[in-house]
């Protein structure tokens, strides 16, 4: 696998909730081809959808816009970049580490923030670059876990 070039698959789609499932389908195809486990693929489907949901919800306001998703295959490492060019400052950075419900009572719970937490929990690494007026870029990475017996 050393010296193999990075392979890229790039899809561009409307920043609309109806199209996020297309990204999941593409992820399934690429991740299966790479040899990720069923569970890892299911985890990544949620993570990439959460990143896309953020672009859909926060990037473009009332206007139409585009989300670009790049899948980079680098040996057993998959990097997924979700990019939008929205004017609105997105919600991701504001959530910081993301939060769960573990230490809250039901009356104290506020809806929201779970998406970012899930992205971080389900991927090996998450990087967010966001600048007001320049859009947002989320990079999600995951490596295939191989047992000792397989190469």
């Amino acid at each position: 696998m050393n010296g193999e070039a990075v392979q890229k698959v790039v899809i561009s789609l409307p920043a609309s909730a109806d199209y996020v499932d297309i990204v999941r389908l593409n992820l399934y195809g690429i991740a299966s081809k790479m040899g990720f486990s069923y569970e890892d693929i299911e985890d990544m489907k949620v993570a990439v959808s959460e990143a896309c949901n953020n672009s859909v919800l926060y990037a473009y306001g009332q206007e139409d816009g585009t989300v670009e998703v790049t899948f980079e295959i680098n040996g057993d490492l998959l990097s997924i970049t979700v990019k939008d060019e929205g004017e609105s400052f997105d919600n991701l950075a504001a959530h910081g580490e993301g939060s769960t419900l573990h230490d809250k009572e039901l009356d104290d719970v506020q809806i929201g923030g779970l998406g970012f937490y899930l992205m971080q929990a389900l991927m090996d690494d998450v990087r967010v670059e966001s600048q007001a007026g320049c859009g947002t870029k989320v990079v999600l990475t995951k490596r295939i876990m191989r047992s000792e017996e397989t190469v």
Partner: protein
Amino acid sequence: MNTNKNEKFNATTESNDGTITVVLSGELDLSVAPEFRLMMKPLVEDSNHNLIINLKNLKYIDSTGIGILLSILKARHGMASQFLVEDVPSQIQKLFDMTGISKFFATKENS
């Protein structure tokens, strides 16, 4: 209602002995969230029935879907009315456990 969405997500309601069971199938994501919320509203507000959501045929859920379940939990809790989820697939249970919503769900076994 957008008929395209019915292929991706469906919610059927059964009424039995004072309990309403809503069976979900397909994918509960951002695209069907508004429709699902709207559909659930009268069922959630009905204090005369117990409410169960069955997830056995649910193939996918995202934080939007989990957020709706959480809203339902809070509303029913506020009404002192029962709300259960049942037949949760393992991948979805994993997400419930990770987010911490599991602790708020009674199961039929321990309700």
